[in-house]
C-alpha cells in the first residue's frame, strides 16, 4: 500500500466514522441520560432520509430536503416519545427493547405501504456531485468532504451545548445521577422530551446526509443501528466525546479491516476490537456513570 493510498483509506475511515457518529450521538444521549434503549433510532434515521428524498422530488431543492428531513424525524421522535415511549422509561431494558423493536417493524411496514418496496432516489446538487483532488492524483468525492465537515460541526456544537450551557449541565447531571438531579430542581421529564427530540433530529440528519450515498429504502436504519450501538457501548454510554472517538475508531478499523483482511475476518474486525476494549474498559472508553 502506497502512502497516498494509505492516507486516502485513513480519510475514508474517518469519514465513515463521522457518519456513524451522527447516528450514535443521538442514541448515546438517549441511552445514557434517560437510561432508555431506543432501537427505533434506526427508524428515525429512515424517516429523515425518506422525508428528504420526497421533499427533494417535490421541490427540487437540496436545502429544503435537509430541513424537511430533520423536522420530520424530530416530529416523529417527539410523537413516539409522547404517545408510547415515555411509558417505558421506568420499565426494564427488556421491555424497552421489545417495545422499540415492535416500533421498527410497524414503521418499516408502514413505510413500505406508503412508498412501496423499491428504493427511492436522493440526488446531489451539481456543485457537490463531483470530486476534488486531496493529494496529487487522488480525487475525493466532494460530498464526502461535506459530510465530514458537517459531522465535525455537529460534534463541535453538541460538545459546546453539553459542556457550556445550562441545559447541557442538566443533561450531564441527569446522566450522572438522575435522582439527585431531579431533587436539585431539574425538570427531568421536560429535559427528557427535549433530549429525545434532539436525538431524533440527529438521527434524521444522519439519514439525510447518508441518503445521497446510500440506498433510501425500507429497513435502511437497522444495519446502521447495529454499528451505532457498537459505537455507543465502546465510547461509554451517554458520553458525546466517547461516541466521537469510538465512531472514528470503528470507521478506521472497519475500513482497514476490509482492505487488509479476508472478507470473513474483515467483517469481524469491529467486533473483535469491541471485545478487546470492553475486556479492559467494561464501561467503554469514556464512561460517564460513576
Amino acid at each position: 500500500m502506497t502512502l497516498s493510498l494509505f492516507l486516502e483509506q485513513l480519510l475514508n475511515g474517518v469519514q465513515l466514522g463521522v457518519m456513524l457518529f451522527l447516528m450514535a450521538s443521538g442514541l448515546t444521549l438517549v441511552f445514557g441520560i434517560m437510561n432508555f434503549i431506543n432501537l427505533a433510532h434506526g427508524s428515525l434515521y429512515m424517516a429523515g432520509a425518506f422525508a428528504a428524498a420526497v421533499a427533494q422530488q417535490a421541490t427540487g431543492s437540496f436545502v429544503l430536503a435537509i430541513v424537511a428531513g430533520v423536522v420530520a424525524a424530530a416530529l416523529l421522535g417527539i410523537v413516539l416519545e409522547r404517545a408510547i415511549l415515555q411509558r417505558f422509561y421506568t420499565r426494564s431494558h427488556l421491555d424497552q427493547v421489545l417495545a422499540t423493536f415492535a416500533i421498527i417493524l410497524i414503521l418499516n411496514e408502514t413505510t413500505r405501504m406508503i412508498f412501496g418496496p423499491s428504493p427511492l432516489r436522493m440526488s446531489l446538487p451539481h456543485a457537490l456531485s463531483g470530486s476534488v483532488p486531496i493529494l496529487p492524483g487522488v480525487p475525493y468525492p466532494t460530498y464526502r468532504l461535506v459530510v465530514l465537515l458537517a459531522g465535525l460541526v455537529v460534534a463541535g456544537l453538541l460538545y459546546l451545548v453539553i459542556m457550556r450551557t445550562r441545559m447541557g449541565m442538566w443533561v450531564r447531571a441527569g446522566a450522572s445521577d438522575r435522582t439527585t438531579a431531579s431533587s436539585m430542581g431539574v425538570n427531568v421529564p421536560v429535559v427528557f422530551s427535549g433530549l429525545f427530540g434532539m436525538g431524533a433530529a440527529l438521527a434524521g440528519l444522519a439519514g439525510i446526509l447518508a441518503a445521497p450515498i446510500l440506498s433510501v429504502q425500507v429497513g435502511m436504519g437497522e444495519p446502521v443501528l447495529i454499528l451505532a450501538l457498537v459505537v455507543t457501548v465502546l465510547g461509554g454510554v451517554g458520553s458525546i466525546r466517547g461516541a466521537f472517538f469510538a465512531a472514528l475508531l470503528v470507521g478506521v478499523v472497519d475500513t482497514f479491516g476490509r482492505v487488509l483482511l479476508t472478507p470473513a475476518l474483515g467483517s469481524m474486525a469491529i467486533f473483535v476490537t469491541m471485545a478487546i476494549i470492553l475486556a479492559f474498559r467494561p464501561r467503554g472508553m469514556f464512561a460517564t456513570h460513576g
Partner: protein
Amino acid sequence: MMRFRTAFAAALLCGTFSVAARAEDPVKIGFLSTFSGPGAALGQEVLDGFKLGLEASGGKIGGRPVELFQADDQAKPDVGRQQADKMVERDKINVLTGVIFSNVMLAVAKPALDAGVFVVSANAGPSQYAGAQCNPHYFAVSFQNDSGAEAMGTYLNAKGVKKIYALAPNYPAGKDFIAGFKRTFKGELVGEKYTTFGQLDYAAEIAEIRAANPQGVFFFYPGGMGVNFVKQYDQAGLKKTAPLYGPSFSVDQTVLPAMGDAALGAYSAAFWAETWDNPQSKKFVADFEAKYHRIPSSYASDGYDTALVLDAAAKAIGGKIEDKKAFRKALETAKFTSLRGNFKFDTNHYPIQDYYLTEIVKDPKGRPIMQVREKIDSDHRDAYVSQCKMAAE
C-alpha cells in the same frame, strides 16, 4: 348391506378422484416469493409480471381457471420450506413458482418435487438443478445464475479488455457470478473482492480499485447494495476511466430509479431488457407501465413468460396437467411467444437463449433505462447441462 354401502361410497370417492381434471376445476398454483425485507421489490416484480401473463391468457391456464396461493418466504430458506410444505400438503398445489433466491429454492424444490408437484422457476436458477440434480418436473423459465456473467466475460474478450476488477457480496450467488465471469473472461483479474453481505460504504474498495487501475469493473450487487455501490462509484469519478459491467441484475429497473444518473454509462449482459426489440415486448412494456406505473425489469418479464409457458403447455394437452408425464412433455416442447423472442428449454429444462449487451441511457422522459446494443451470444447454453442425466420419468 353395510358392506355394500361402504363399497358404494368408496366407489363414489374413487370416481371423484379419477375425474379430478375436469375443465372447471382450477389449476392450483403456489406462488412462493419474497414480499418483505430488502428483496421485497423483486417478489412484487415477478408477481406483477405473472399476473399480466395470466391476463394475456384470459385468466386461465390450459382453459381452466387458476387458483393462486401466495406466500412470503422472507428470503429465508426455513420460512420458505414451511410455506411450501403448507402449499403442497394443505392446498394441494399442482405447480410451485415465484421463488427469487437460489438458497430458498434449494430448500423448497426437493420436498415439492418429491410430492409430485411441478417446480417452474420464474427467477432462481441454481446450478444444482441445472447439473447433477436435474429433475423431470423441475423447469427454469428464467436463466441459470452464471449465464449473464459468462456472457459479460465473452463480450469483454471481444472488446479486447484485458484488466478487470471484480466485486461481489460474500455469499453463494456472489461467488457464482464471479466464477461464471472467470469461466469465460480471458484477461487478467487485477482484483477480486468479496464484501460483507449488506455492506453500506464502499469507499475503501473504490480506493483499492483506483489504485489497481483496471480497464473496467465487473460487479454483482443486488438490491440496495448495488444502489450504494453505483452511487459511490459515480461520486468517486471513476466511471470514465473504468466503466461498470455486470449481469443485468446489477443495473435493472428494480434499482435504476434509485441510482438515477449515477448508473448512466454502465453496461450489462441481459437476456431481456425493457428496450427489447420485438412486438410482444413492446406491448408488454406498455401494458405493464400503464397498469403499474413503472418500467418492468427482467424479473417481471420472467414472471410473464412463466405464465405463458404454463398456459401453452397445459393447452397442448387439453388442460389435463394431472397427467404428469404428458404435462412434462408439453412443457419441454411448449410453443409460446416468449418476450425474449428466441427461447427453448435445454435438455436440463433450463433456457437456451440469446444474450445482448445493454447500456444504461436516459429515455425521453429522463429516466435511466437499459438500451439494447449488440448481440453477445446466440443460443447460450449453461455450463452445467452436460452434468445432467435427465430421468425418463
